[in-house]
């Protein structure tokens, strides 16, 4: 065959160093043992440059000769060398993982642009430590996968994910990837009871929850929940059964979802539904505290949608839970909420009872703010019931407490409420004066003033005085005439007139109380406003 002759000579440039350097011949040379130290004293011969060159030559001779691979090692980046190490062992999966992670990170960073926060973060290929750890675990996992020992594969990925959880916040996405991989590994397990799978699900969704994708987390946890069904023997690291863990996490997730939905008024039904789900979960295995909290939230939501009976039921559950856990603050909150729902049910007496308990509890726990709240709530109830003495008492208490606390907003509100209650209290005295039979003149004058009331207050006052004066005269004259002409008239007629006037007077009184109620409403509104502020 002429094929040998076919291969043509390679054209070479005359001067260009096209000859590849003969590295092999250098490599074969036996290195002389280094015995001498560098001579710093130089012979006088030669110029300065020559001496420097000689010295450099000597120094260079002391360096070890590098094989080809070693030179490449020095030339290449750390990332390159690491990838080479992995690939030489045939670990293509590990290589793909690491390489793609780095690529992804760079891509995300590029998309975010140089002005983003990501730009300032350290990239993965500048962190040899992390890469080395990753390499170790991944290659081990791949080895195990070749041996078809998927449980170990799971462990490896799991360890790796945990490692990245501990490093820093920015690495969450990496540990997320590895949790996912761990989950995939459990899918390949054939003859296991599914415990690892359950754990993997748990980890994946714990993680996706951290990064905020709650819907995904819900899916995973629901699978986890189903997997742990009828498996009371599975105990986690903390000593609780996995089932309990599932319930607890699901409860948390549901309540978070509910809170999100709660902001939108159109999703009220879903909001309630999620809260109910959360409560069911907590009821099953979330522990007393969690159950209490869930029921409290549910109760409040029911109260908000005006289903006070249901609200009261769940709030009672919360109260019991708080009693068990000795949570005074919670107990106070429970009593307060219960009182509110009782009030909207129309059971004022019980409401007062609950509020008193609220006050008692907060007094015991020395929670002054709660106590002040309790007092003002009590005051409000008494106020609406018309028992102004007690209302004033309570408002005084509330006012004093908030003064002691030196909290401006509550002070002003308390002061206002106190003022209103005191005013209300005065109304009874006022009424007594007006109703007074002996002093008919009051009522009559009041009536007239009311009839003649005009826009301008000053004018009306002057006119009033005049009218009153004249009226007084007229009435005096009339009375005198009447006394002269009808001295024998029955006293009964006079009594009847008085009675009529009484009716009018009482109507007046009612009017005045109404107007005062309006005023108190205004005050309440203003209170609401201040609270909002």
């Amino acid at each position, binding site marked *: 065959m002429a094929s040998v002759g076919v291969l043509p000579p390679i054209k070479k440039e005359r001067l260009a160093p096209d000859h590849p350097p003969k590295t092999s011949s250098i490599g074969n040379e036996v290195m002389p043992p280094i015995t001498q130290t560098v001579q710093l004293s130089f012979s006088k011969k030669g110029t300065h440059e020559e001496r420097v060159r000689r010295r450099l030559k000597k120094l260079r001779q002391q360096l070890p000769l590098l094989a080809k691979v070693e030179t490449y090692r020095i030339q290449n980046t750390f990332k390159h060398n690491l990838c080479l190490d992995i690939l030489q062992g045939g670990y*293509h*999966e590990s290589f793909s993982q690491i390489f793609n992670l780095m690529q992804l990170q760079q891509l995300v960073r590029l998309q975010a642009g140089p002005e983003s926060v990501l730009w300032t973060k350290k990239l993965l290929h500048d962190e040899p430590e992390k890469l080395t750890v990753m390499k170790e675990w991944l290659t081990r996992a791949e080895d195990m996968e070749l041996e078809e020992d998927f449980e170990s594969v799971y462990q490896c990925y799991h360890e790796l994910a945990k490692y990245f959880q501990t490093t820093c916040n920015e690495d969450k996405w990496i540990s997320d990837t590895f949790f996912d991989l761990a989950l995939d590994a459990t899918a390949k397990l054939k003859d296991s009871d599914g415990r690892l799978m359950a754990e993997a699900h748990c980890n994946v969704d714990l993680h996706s929850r951290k990064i905020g994708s709650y819907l995904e987390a819900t899916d995973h946890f629901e699978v986890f929940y189903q997997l742990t069904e009828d498996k009371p023997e599975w105990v986690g690291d903390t000593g609780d059964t996995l089932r309990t863990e599932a319930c607890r996490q699901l409860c948390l997730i549901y309540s978070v979802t509910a809170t999100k939905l709660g902001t939108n008024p159109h999703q009220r039904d879903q909001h309630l539904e999620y809260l109910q789900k959360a409560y069911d979960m907590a009821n099953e295995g979330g522990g007393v505290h969690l159950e209490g909290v869930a029921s409290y939230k549910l109760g409040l939501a029911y109260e908000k949608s005006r289903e006070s009976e249901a609200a009261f039921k769940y709030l009672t559950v919360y109260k019991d839970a708080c009693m068990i856990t000795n949570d005074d603050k919670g107990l106070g909150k429970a009593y307060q909420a219960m009182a509110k729902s009782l009030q909207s049910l129309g059971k004022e007496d019980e409401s007062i009872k609950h509020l008193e308990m609220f006050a008692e509890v907060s007094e015991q726990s020395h929670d002054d703010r709660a106590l002040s709240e309790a007092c003002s709530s009590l005051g409000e109830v008494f106020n609406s019931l018309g028992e102004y003495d007690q209302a004033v008492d309570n408002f005084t208490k509330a006012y004093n407490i908030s003064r002691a606390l030196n909290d401006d907003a509550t002070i002003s509100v308390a002061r206002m409420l106190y003022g209103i209650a005191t005013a209300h209290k005065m109304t009874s005295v006022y009424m007594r004066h007006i109703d007074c039979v002996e002093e008919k003149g009051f009522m009559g004058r009041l009536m007239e003033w009311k009839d003649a009331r005009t826009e301008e207050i000053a004018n009306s006052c002057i006119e009033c005085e005049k009218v009153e004066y004249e009226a007084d005269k007229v009435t005096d004259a009339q009375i005198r005439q009447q006394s002269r002409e009808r001295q024998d008239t029955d006293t009964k007629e006079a009594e009847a007139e008085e009675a009529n006037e009484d009716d009018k007077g009482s109507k007046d009184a009612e009017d005045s109380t109404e107007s005062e109620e309006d005023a108190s409403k205004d005050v309440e509104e203003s209170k609401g406003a201040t609270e909002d502020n």
Partner: protein
Amino acid sequence: MALNPLANPKGVKRLCELCQKPAFIECLDCRVTYYCTKEHQGIDYRGIHKKICSLLIHLRAPAPFLNSGEDRQNRKDEMLLRQKQMIDLTRTTGQKLLFEGKHEQAVPAAMQALKFAIDVYGLSSIELVPSYLILGEASIGLGHLSHAEEYLSQAQWTVLKTPECSHDIQSRLHRNVGLLYAAKGDYPESLNQLGNDIYHSSEAFGTDDIRTSGGYFHMANVFFRLNKMKTADSLYKKVTTIWFTFLERIINVRTRTPVVPKGVGPVAEEPPMKEEVLDEAQEAEAIQVLNAIYDMREQQRATAQVMAKIAYAVTMLYTVLHDFSRANSFIYTAVKASKANPEDELSKKIAELARMLQTPYTSGIAMGMKI
């Protein structure tokens, strides 16, 4: 093939196209190519000349007399463009011949590519490297390891002198050097080089590209020879998966039913999906790699699932290449293997493709073939 014996006129030196010795015969079709012996002519003709015979006339004919500088410049530009096209053509041909295992024929093609590249880019350009690489690989295939080493060293040196050299070229260089070491039996060094190949290729195309799969394949072969069966197996699996996904994408694009617009109204023109294409060299590579894996799996008596996958991949390949008779023979194996677990996703796909292949006419239309 008609040949003219040459009576060389004085002062004109005609050299053989292949060995650069004095030539005595010329090709009658183009009349610009000369050979020393008929043997060389035959090799060249089978290798590359068949394809470029007519194209060479334009390139090698003596330059006509042109009056204006503009014309001269135009001609120069045109020549340059043609030469570049020739580089592409010859290089791809050489690569394809290599994948088909015709190492001897690949040499003339690579030589032509090298010549044109030298003409266009000069002696020390990075553009020469692909040709060197083909020559090196051909030499490895022919068993001339020293020649191969010479060519590859040349390539390596050029790459080393060009630090901004693309990842693509570096990967191919490392692949060939790796193959050389494998042929020499220096497996650790070979693995190192192939690792480099995969690294650079991943930088250029991603870890799961068909252009990266070659590195995995050769690496798998090395592990196979080192008798590390499990690693080799997993690597073969990786190669299969890469080709599998790639071919599946093509099939999906081709068999996609266009959305029929409902009701009256302006028809929203959806942009046609871009179909990835295999060039000739890649086709040859696919055939070589997938068939090799298929044969190996058959010998290994692999599990039904693995068998189904590779058989399906080969079927898809032949379907894409419009070679329906071969596709039919492979789909038979695929169907047989997929019977083990008929509920599988893969089995469903196989059944669908089998149904399509049973009616070659319609499938031909579906596949966009001109009938």
